[in-house]
C-alpha cells in the first residue's frame, strides 16, 4: 500500500531533561537512543518532513530547551510554513530565549504542570519546577503565543482538576489538556501508584465536562480518558504510522514515542542517504501495522476498526508480548483480563526517571 500523508512531525530532539517525572512516557530504555543527531541533520529532516506534507511540528523530548539549536530548528520549520509547537516543562526558564524563539516564528507553547501547585511538581517531577513553569506560561502569553496547559492526571492529582482549570484560566491558556496517564515507560513501572479509582476518575471527568461547557468559546478543555477504564481502546496516534511521524534524538523514525519498546521491530534512522520520506514509505517496521491487513480477530471483522485502528500496539506488546494482538484495553479482546490484572497492581515506591 502507499504510505499515508503525515500531517505532524513529532521531533523528540533530546532525551535530556531536568525533571524526573514518575509518569514520563519516554521508554525506560531511553538511554539506548540518547545519542543526538546534529543541527544539520534536524534541518534536513525538517525539509524532508515538509516535502512529505507535514504542517505541524512538535519540538519535544526530553526537554527541548536543553538543545541550544532549538531556535535554528524553529526558524527553519517556520520558514517551511510549518506551525511550530514547543512542548516544554518550562525548565530552565529564560525570558530572552523565549523572545528569540517567538521572533523566529514559534506559534504555540505547551507547558506541562504536575498539578495545581508547587507541591505537585516536587512530588511527581522530583524537581522544584513551579516558578519556571509559571514564568514560561506567562511569558508565552505576554509574547502573544498560543498557550496550552497540559497536566497528566493520575491517582495522585485527580482531585486537583478544579484547581488546575482555575490555574489555566488565570494564565490565559487557549487550551487545557487534562490527559489521563498512559501506562507506558516510567508510568508503566509506576502503575500501582498511578492508576486511579474509577470513582475518582468519574468525579474528575464531571469537573472537566462542566469546565468545558462553561469555557466554550474562551478555552478548549480536553479530557483524555484513560483506556484502562474504557470499553474500547483509544485510537492510538490516529493509527500506526498514519498521521504522525516521530523522530527520536538519534534520528530513528518511529510511529509513536513508545514504539521502540516493541523489540520485535527494527526501526530505521533517517540519514543523508536514506531520507525521512524513504523511511516513511519503505520501512517494514512502519508498514507493519498500517491499514487493517495485520489485524487479528476480533478486530478484523469489527465495525470499530476504522475508529480505533485496533488500539495501541505498544500496549499489546507490553502486556501480552505480542504487538499484533488486539489491544487488551478493548473489552472484546480475548486478553482483556490482562488489563484488569494490571489495573489492580499494588502501589510501590515511585521510580523516578533518571534516578534509577
Amino acid at each position, binding site marked *: 500500500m502507499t504510505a499515508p*500523508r503525515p*500531517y505532524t512531525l513529532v521531533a523528540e530532539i533530546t532525551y535530556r531533561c531536568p525533571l524526573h517525572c514518575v509518569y514520563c512516557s519516554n521508554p525506560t530504555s531511553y538511554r539506548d537512543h540518547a545519542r543526538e543527531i546534529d543541527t544539520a541533520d534536524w534541518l534536513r529532516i525538517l525539509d524532508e518532513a515538509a516535502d512529505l*506534507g507535514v*504542517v*505541524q511540528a512538535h519540538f519535544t523530548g526530553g526537554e527541548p530547551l536543553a538543545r541550544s539549536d532549538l531556535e535554528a530548528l524553529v526558524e527553519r520549520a517556520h520558514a517551511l*510554513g510549518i*506551525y511550530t*509547537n514547543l512542548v516544554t516543562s518550562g525548565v530552565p526558564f529564560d525570558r530572552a530565549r523565549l523572545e528569540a524563539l517567538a521572533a523566529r516564528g514559534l*506559534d*504555540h507553547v*505547551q507547558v506541562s504542570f504536575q498539578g495545581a501547585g508547587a507541591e505537585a511538581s516536587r512530588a511527581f517531577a522530583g524537581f522544584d519546577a513551579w516558578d519556571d513553569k509559571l514564568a514560561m506560561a506567562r511569558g508565552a502569553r505576554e509574547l*502573544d503565543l*498560543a498557550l*496550552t496547559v497540559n497536566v497528566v492526571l493520575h491517582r495522585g492529582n485527580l482531585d486537583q482538576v478544579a484547581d488546575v482549570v482555575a490555574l489555566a484560566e488565570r494564565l490565559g491558556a*487557549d*487550551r487545557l489538556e487534562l490527559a489521563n496517564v498512559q501506562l507506558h515507560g516510567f508510568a508503566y513501572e509506576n502503575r500501582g501508584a498511578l492508576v486511579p479509582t474509577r470513582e475518582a476518575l468519574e468525579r474528575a471527568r464531571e469537573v472537566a465536562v462542566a469546565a468545558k461547557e462553561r469555557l466554550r*468559546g474562551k478555552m*478548549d478543555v480536553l479530557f483524555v480518558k484513560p483506556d484502562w477504564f474504557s470499553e474500547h481502546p483509544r485510537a492510538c496516534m490516529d493509527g500506526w504510522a498514519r498521521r504522525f511521524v516521530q523522530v527520536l534524538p538519534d534520528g530513528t523514525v518511529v510511529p509513536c514515542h513508545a514504539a521502540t519498546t516493541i523489540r520485535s521491530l527494527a526501526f530505521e534512522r533517517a540519514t543523508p542517504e536514506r531520507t525521512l520520506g524513504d523511511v516513511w514509505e519503505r520501512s517494514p517496521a512502519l508498514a507493519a501495522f498500517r491499514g487493517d491487513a495485520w489485524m487479528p480477530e476480533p478486530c478484523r471483522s469489527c465495525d470499530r476498526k476504522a475508529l480505533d485502528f485496533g488500539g495501541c500496539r505498544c500496549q499489546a506488546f507490553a502486556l501480552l508480548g505480542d504487538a499484533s494482538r488486539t489491544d487488551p484495553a478493548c473489552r472484546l479482546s480475548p486478553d482483556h483480563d490482562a488489563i484488569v490484572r494490571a489495573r489492580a497492581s499494588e502501589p510501590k515506591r515511585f521510580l523516578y526517571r533518571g534516578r534509577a
Partner: protein
Amino acid sequence: MNARPKLARRARLRWDERDQRHMIVYPERGLALNASAAEVVKLCDGTRSIDDIVAALASATGEPRERIDRDVRELLARLEEKRLVE
C-alpha cells in the same frame, strides 16, 4: 462576532501545495478550506466589515450578493465557534 473579523492570532492560513488548497493551522489541528472559503478568510484582516467582505466578493465573482452574504456569515460563525476568527 467582531464587526471587523480577523484570523485568530493562534491560527495561520497557508497554502497546501500537496492538496492544492488553503488550510488553517492552529494548535494541534488543521482545517482544509475550499477555494471560496479561503477567499473569505483572506479578507478577514481586521480592517474590513462583513459587508465590505461581501461587497468585495460580489464584485470579484459576480454572484448574487444575498447568497454571498449568507455563505460568508455561515462560514464566519463556524470559524468563530472554533475560535479561528476573532
